[in-house]
């Protein structure tokens, strides 16, 4: 039971709004000490895992220079201009289309998305642009809602398509787990049983996209009514 002290540290630390890095490190140290490790052993573990997981930070750092350069030269603005020409585009439909492309492509083993490389430079500006083309200037909170949903569209498309492809992480990990238990479980069966949930997730995304479009219209209307033209 005492090993759960780390979860307690995290819950308390997040609730009291301490610096997140500090909370995470403290939780690790507390758990390690509770499990009878020495401080240096805990530091060794943190050091080893931190070096092993550099791949998590790599895409962001390598993407940032080209991303910032393209933005400096109007990438987001151009994406907005382009989407304005598409009459049928709404913020919700742009995001829905992105989720669909993401789900289908990753289920075929093709990984075309990502927050730094697709969502910030292209998807979020296009969704915002579609909303601006319809409603004019948007209130700040509406812009934020569109961006948050753009990030959600990426995650949903990524997570609920990935499981269908047999040659990547999740399915291989599951097979590996069953192998350690001396069980034979087919990768194709596991991949196929991921498909129903993929459809459910896309249906949920349709619902959220429609709600987002209605919410944008309502917030713009409210901003116009309260005067000031809504350019908050």
């Amino acid at each position: 039971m005492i090993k759960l002290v780390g979860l307690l540290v995290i819950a308390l630390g997040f609730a009291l709004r301490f610096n997140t890095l500090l909370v995470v490190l403290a939780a690790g140290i507390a758990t390690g000490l509770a499990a009878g490790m020495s401080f240096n052993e805990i530091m060794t573990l943190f050091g080893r895992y931190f070096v092993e997981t550099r791949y998590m930070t790599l895409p962001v750092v390598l993407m940032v220079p080209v991303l910032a350069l393209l933005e400096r030269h109007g990438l987001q603005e151009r994406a907005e201009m382009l989407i304005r020409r598409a009459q049928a585009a709404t913020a919700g439909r742009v995001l829905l289309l992105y989720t669909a492309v993401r789900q289908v492509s990753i289920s075929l083993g093709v990984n075309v998305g990502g927050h730094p490389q697709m969502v910030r430079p292209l998807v979020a500006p296009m969704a915002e642009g579609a909303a601006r083309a319809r409603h004019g200037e948007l209130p700040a909170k509406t812009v934020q809602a569109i961006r948050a949903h753009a990030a959600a569209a990426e995650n949903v498309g990524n997570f609920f398509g990935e499981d269908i492809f047999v040659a990547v992480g999740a399915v291989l990990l599951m097979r590996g787990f069953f192998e350690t238990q001396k069980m034979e479980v087919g990768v194709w069966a596991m991949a196929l049983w991921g498909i129903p949930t993929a459809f459910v997730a896309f249906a949920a995304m349709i619902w959220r996209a429609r709600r987002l479009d209605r919410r944008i219209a309502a917030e713009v209307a409210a901003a116009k009514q309260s005067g000031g033209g809504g350019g908050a």
Partner: protein
Amino acid sequence: MTLLTLELFYQLCGALLAVVAWRIARDASHPRRWGSAAFWSLLAVVFLFGRQLPPVVTGYIVLALVGLAALKQVERSRADGAPREVRLAEAVRLGNRIFVPALLIPLTAVMGTLILGRLRTGSFALVDPKQVTLVSLSLGALLALAWALRVSGAPLRAPVAEGGRLLQVLGWALILPQLLAALGGVFAQAGVGQVVAEIVGRALPAQQPFVAVVAYCAGMALFTMCLGNAFAAFAVITGGIGLPLIVVQHHGNPAIMAAIGMLSGYCGTLLTPMAANFNLVPALLLELPDRNAVIKAQAPIALAVLAANIVLMGACVYRF
């Protein structure tokens, strides 16, 4: 022997971080000049020499990084980006040519993943197939950068200056995913998962087949929320709840259980700040004032999919 290894790109990352640190150190108007410079240079050291340094030294570097962040020594520079008018003028000047480098990134990533891993003669390989996705993505970023410099006519220092500004917007949160992964490792070493699985197993009347399904799916989601990683939760919860109850006791289908169980874990990923690279870093990248905005946008989807998963598994796992 492998030509393009991830280590090479880590070095490149480290070099870039070092330049960012150097630029901060020379910027007298920076609000936290020395603390921020120290943070980025220490991070540069981990990327440049991570493999050579003894893990315990890296551990203390991580401790220092966290200390600098907790003492509010890591701030962004005062420099502003280009104003909207300038960017609009550039958008008109360059037209759709600006999309070419942006699309070059996913294109290179995909083509590279399909092709590069297969190029080998004897013991000499271009890329390790295990690393090919990340290597291709990194190559895509570099190709795109070269093309973007050509299209825009900007000097080489422009992407470093602008990129450094953007990295400082992310700030210390950049290393949060790595630190959380390390915490997951410590949890695993300490055996936290087994304790949780034991408690869940004892607290629920899992003799009922459907209750076992609820316990497994909800357990996957909850434990993923605690760890921030469905893969780490999978072994623990499947070993502790799924296999003994659903498969052994009630003769459920292991493939159905595993597939839908993992996807229930992903619902947890959508709900937790512990999955920082999916939820918190994007909120910062999109410059949202509310760090939990992405999680809030995802919560209804996650809960709906989780409920559907429970119904689906309950209906199918004992039947097929």
